[in-house]
């Protein structure tokens, strides 16, 4: 029997529930536009997806946008070439969208797995740079071949037929389920043996391996899982935008993901979650007052944090003790 009270004493769990409830309420009460909510879930979601490999295992995947791109294009191609599917995509409470997104995410997971076998042998900066290389390689391949597949995909752009996207509500539901899955997966992984193994890898990979952690397997699993969710989010986001173009591969998305994780702090679930909420608040307020300057300011915040609080805002908080209770023990 699950002890409800026990869960309520876990701030991270409570925060996840709060975020999910808040988004659902905002949708039901029409506090925000559906597009805005989908965008928020997309950005927080990709940060939390990257967290699985970057935050837990310590592998900074700089080219993670490659999975947004791959799954975005796979999704678009599937829908484009299957009229029956496109016609029923926007029905049944978004379930068809969700299912096709799983297929698209699966392709990313497969790519991550195949690429990960060699590339995850690299450590630190070499891994980061190899993933950038991968992103560019994939981008240029898409740029070269998509227009060859079909002349209508001019400039590697695939525009989805309008009937694939009549009700944003269904897209919202598919995005919401995926988003919830990402958060819950983060939480479950962080508390599991798998999660402890990943954190040990990020501390010292050789020591972890020597203590029995199957490092290769764990890294591959985390990388593939991370790619899977990133891909699903990219696919649904592409649908919401009405089509995909090469911008999905743009490293700008990497910037968003990494900034959110670094602001909140690596090694936890709470960190990136809080980080991405802060990111959004800042982004929104700065966007209004200093539209061109928001990234300059966000970049400066990151620069300061890396120097003075390498474990981010949550890292500072976790070091504290309140009423004899060490926050480190309860903030996951």
């Amino acid at each position, binding site marked *: 029997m699950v002890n409800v009270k026990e869960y309520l004493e876990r701030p991270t769990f409570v925060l996840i529930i709060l975020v999910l409830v808040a988004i659902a309420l905002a949708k039901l009460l029409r506090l925000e536009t559906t597009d805005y909510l989908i965008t928020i879930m997309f950005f927080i979601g990709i940060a939390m997806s990257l967290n699985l490999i970057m935050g837990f295992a310590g592998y900074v995947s700089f080219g993670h946008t490659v999975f947004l791109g791959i799954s975005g294009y796979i999704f678009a191609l599937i829908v484009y070439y299957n009229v029956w599917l496109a016609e029923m995509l926007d029905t049944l409470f978004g379930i068809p969208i969700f299912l096709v997104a799983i297929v698209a995410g699966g392709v990313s997971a497969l790519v991550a797995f195949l690429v990960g076998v060699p590339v995850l042998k690299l450590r630190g900066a070499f891994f980061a740079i190899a993933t950038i290389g991968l992103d560019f390689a994939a981008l240029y391949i898409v740029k070269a071949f998509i227009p060859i597949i079909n002349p209508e995909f001019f400039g590697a752009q695939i525009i989805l037929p309008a009937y694939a996207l009549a009700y944003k509500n269904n897209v919202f539901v598919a995005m919401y389920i995926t988003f919830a899955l990402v958060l819950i997966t983060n939480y479950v992984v962080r508390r599991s043996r798998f999660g402890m193994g990943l954190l*040990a890898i990020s501390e010292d990979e050789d020591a972890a391996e020597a*203590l029995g952690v199957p490092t290769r397997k764990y890294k591959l699993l985390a990388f593939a899982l991370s790619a899977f969710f990133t891909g699903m989010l990219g696919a649904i986001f592409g649908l919401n935008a009405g089509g995909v173009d090469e911008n999905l591969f743009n490293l700008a998305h990497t910037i968003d993901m990494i900034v959110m994780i670094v602001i909140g702090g690596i090694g936890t679930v709470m960190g990136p979650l809080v980080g991405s909420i802060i990111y959004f608040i800042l982004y929104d307020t700065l966007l209004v007052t200093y539209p061109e300057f928001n990234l300059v300011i966000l970049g400066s915040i990151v620069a300061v944090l890396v120097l003075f609080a390498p474990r981010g805002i949550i890292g500072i908080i976790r070091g504290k003790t309140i009423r004899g209770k060490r926050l480190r023990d309860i903030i996951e």
Partner: protein
Amino acid sequence: MDVIIKIDRVTKRFGGLVALNKVSFNIYKGEILGVIGPNGAGKTTLFNCITGVYSPDDGRIYFNGVDITGMPPHKITQLGIVKTHQIVKPFNEFTVLENAMIGALFGKRAGKISKEEAREIALKNLKLVGLAEKKDELAIGLTLHEKKFLELARVLSAEPDVILLDEALAGLNPKEVEESLDIIKMINKDLGKTIVMVEHVMHAVMNIAERIVVLHFGQLLAEGTPKEVAEMPEVITAYLGDKDLALKFVRR
């Protein structure tokens, strides 16, 4: 006595350098075996070959009769051979307890153990090495001496049969050395673990070990009881230098 690890003509090269050259010897169940040799003799390399960090270029290694040559390190750990690192490698941002828990969660009973059980095993071993009081501190704040004990508690939590200690005493003061020796003896006698220790602290290893293996330029130079080894002329010239000094170590 039963052979627990059999090292059979193991060779390991790094480029042109032969770090281990057809080294063969046995490790017996329940013993304390000392491995000595000058710097660069290949001691750490030998440990790395046994624990799977390197795979030997030639030769085989058997554990309880099973060929473990070339297995990945984590598999070998789960079979029951662990080692501590010459340069300590704590998980800095983990607490002391969490460090030891990793050992329990991924050790011999990996996957068959709950987090609660792991915590208990970890606590028990932290008590044994005298770190129980620091269990909630971050490992990064420990002294070198404590970090070495943490290494020990961590590998003990993996519930191994054989523990390889790579210079566990280096850098400790005499009092800490005595403390460590008591713990090592206890792990051997009371817990029944086989112990192989690489050591430069000569009097310590000569006293505690039942048998000694001497490596020299990657070759097995000698094997025997501390007394026998200390009297072998080739060992004396190669390593100990002075016969009286060597015997003094044994007597102390």
